C-alpha cells in the first residue's frame, strides 16, 4: 500500500494546510495521522474525532473494586465470623469505607489500563517518529506510494515542512 512518510511542520496552520494537500492528493483519512509535542484538538486539525472509550474501562473497574470491597467487608466476616466490640458481624456503615476505597482503586487502575490499551502504549518498538516533535513540531504521518510522494514532496516543502522522512526505509 506504499510507504509511510513523516512531515514535520513548525506550526499548526501549515500542518493543517498540509493535511488538506494530502487529502486533495487522495490520501485517505485513515492513512493520515498527526503527531505533536502538545495536544492539538482534532477539530483544529480537521481530523475525525478520536473515539473516547475510557468510560468503558473505568466503569467495570469501579464495579470490580466495589465487588472486592463488598467481598472484603461483608464476605470475609461471614466466612469466618468473629465478634468484636459487640458489633454485628455484618454492617453497612463501617463497610462503606473499604467499599469506597476499593471502588476508587478499581477506577484508578482501570483508567490506567484503559489508557494504555486505548493509546496502545507501551510501543517501544515504534520508529515512526522524530525528536523535533518534542521540541514542539507537528508531524504529519501519511502513507502513499512513491509516485504520490514525489508529488507531495515539493508542496509540503513549500508549506514549510522542514523535515520529510520516508520512515520505513530510512530507519530499517
Amino acid at each position, binding site marked *: 500500500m506504499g510507504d509511510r512518510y513523516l512531515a514535520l511542520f513548525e506550526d499548526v496552520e501549515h500542518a493543517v494546510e498540509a493535511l488538506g494537500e494530502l487529502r486533495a492528493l487522495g490520501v485517505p483519512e485513515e492513512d493520515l*495521522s498527526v503527531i505533536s509535542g*502538545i495536544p492539538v*484538538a482534532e477539530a483544529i486539525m480537521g481530523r475525525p474525532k478520536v473515539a*473516547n472509550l475510557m468510560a468503558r474501562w473505568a466503569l467495570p473497574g469501579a464495579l470490580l473494586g466495589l465487588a472486592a470491597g463488598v467481598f472484603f467487608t461483608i464476605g*470475609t466476616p461471614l466466612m469466618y465470623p468473629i465478634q468484636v466490640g459487640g458489633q454485628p458481624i455484618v454492617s453497612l456503615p463501617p463497610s462503606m469505607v473499604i467499599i469506597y*476505597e*476499593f471502588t476508587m*482503586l478499581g477506577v484508578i487502575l482501570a483508567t490506567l489500563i484503559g489508557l494504555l490499551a486505548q493509546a496502545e502504549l507501551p510501543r517501544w518498538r515504534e520508529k515512526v517518529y522524530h525528536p523535533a516533535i518534542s*521540541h514542539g513540531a507537528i508531524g504529519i504521518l501519511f502513507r502513499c506510494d512513491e509516485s504520490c510522494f514525489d508529488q507531495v514532496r515539493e508542496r509540503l516543502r513549500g508549506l514549510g515542512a522542514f523535515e520529510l522522512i520516508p520512515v520505513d526505509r530510512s530507519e530499517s
Partner: protein
Amino acid sequence: MSSEATMHPDLAHVEQELKAADLLLDRRPREEMNYEVMRAMERISLTWLIVAFFLGGLVFLGLVLAWGYQIKWGLGVAGINRPVFWGVYIANFVFWIGISHAGTLISAILRSVGAEWRRPITRAAEAMTVFALMVAGMYPLIHMGRTWRFYWMLPYPNQRLLWPNFRSPLMWDMMAILTYLTGSLIFLYLPLIPDLAMVRDHSSAKLRKKLFNILSLGWRGTEAEWKHLHVAMAIFTFIIIPVAASVHTIVSWDFAMSNVPGWKSTIFGPYFVVGAIYSGVGALAVVLVMVRKFMGFEYYLREQHLDNIGKIMLTMTFFWTYFWFNGYLTEWYGAETALDFLREFMTYTGPAAPLFYAMLITNIIIPIAILWSRAGRTTPWMISLAGISINIGMYLERYIIVPVTLSRNRFPFSWGHYVPSPVEILISIGSLSMFILLYVLLSRIVPLISVWEVQEGQVMHVIRRVGRTLVPGVIQWHKAE
C-alpha cells in the same frame, strides 16, 4: 501577539509588564525550554553530591541504624509508654500524610477548575505527594511492635482462612493510603510521559536515553495518545480529589473512632483534611522556592505562583483556624471532666501549654502576618518562612493530638508523660531526610517542570490589543470541537 514593529513604545512597556507577570504570556520556544529544564536536570554539581550524600547518611542513620536498633530490641527504645502508646511515629505519620495533600490534591483541584497558572507547579507538587506518602507509609511499619509481621495486615487470609479485620480504621487507613499512593503515582506519571519522551529524544547520554525510552512507554504524541491521556487525566482529577479527602478523613478516624477523650470528635474528618491541605500548601511553597532557587527555574516559577500559593495558604489559615476553634469551643463548652484534664494539661499554664501556644502562633499569627500582604506572599524567603511556620504549627498540632492527648485520660492515677527518645528523633530526622533526598534525586531524574503543559499554556495565551492597551487573553484550545 501584536507585531512589535507597529507597537507604540508605551505598549511595548505594557507588553513587557504582562510578560513579566505571567509565565504563560512570556512565550519562549519549546526547544529552549526543553534544554533549560534538561540542563537543570542533568547538572550534577559537587554541592549536589555533598547534599545527597549528607542526606543519604542521615537516612542511613535514621532509617537503617536507628530503626534497625528498634526492631532488634523492641519498641522500648522509643519514649512511648502506658498510657501514651502512640508517640511521634504517629504524629509523623499524620504530618506526612498531611504534606502529601499538597501535591496531588492541590494539583487536581487546580486542574479541575482550569487554573492556568498551575502549569509549571503541578509536577513539583505531585512529586511531593508521592514522596510524602512513601515516608508516611513507612511510619505505620516503624510504629508496629512486630514490624516483621506487617504483611499480616494485607488483605489475604491466613492458613486458618482468617482475613484481616476490615472494620479496623487501620485497615481503612492502609487501603486508603494504598489507593491514594497508587492514584498519586499514576497522577504524577501520566503527565510526565510526554516529558520523559522529550528527555529520551534529546538527551545525549546513552543510558538515560535507553531508560527514558522504557519509562516513556514509547510515547510519540499521536492523536490517540494525547486524547486518552487527556481523558485519563480528567478522570483522575476528579477521582483523586475525593480519594485525597478520604485519606485524611480516615487518618482522622484512627483517632475519632476511638474512645479517647480529645479524639472522639465528629469534626475531626474535615478538620484533618483542612489541616492536611494547610500544611501541604505550606510545604509546597517552601519546595517551590527551593526548586526555583536551586534549579534555576526563575523563568518558570514566578512571583505570580508564590502569590497564588500564598493566597491559598491564607485561605487555609482561616479555614484551619475556623475548624480548630470549632472543635475547641464545643469541647470547652461540654466541660467533660476528662477533657478538662486535657485542657488543663495543654493550655493555660499546663506543662504542655507552650506547645499549644506555639501552635497557635505558628499556625495563625505568623502566617496571617506574612501572607496578608502581596509583598509577604511574593518574597521567596517570607513565603518560605510562612510555609515553615505553618508546618511547625501543624506538626505541633499533630503532636498535641497524639502523645499530648494520650497523656491524659479518665483515670488521673494512670496519666502519662511522654518525651521522644533519641531513637524516635533519629528516625524522624531520617524520614525527613529521606523525603528531601528523594526530591533531590528526583530533580536529577525527571524534569521538574512539565514543559509540554507550559508550552500548551503558552500557546493558549495571547496578548491582544483592545482599544488603547494590551490585554491578555486565553484561547481555549482544548475546548475546540
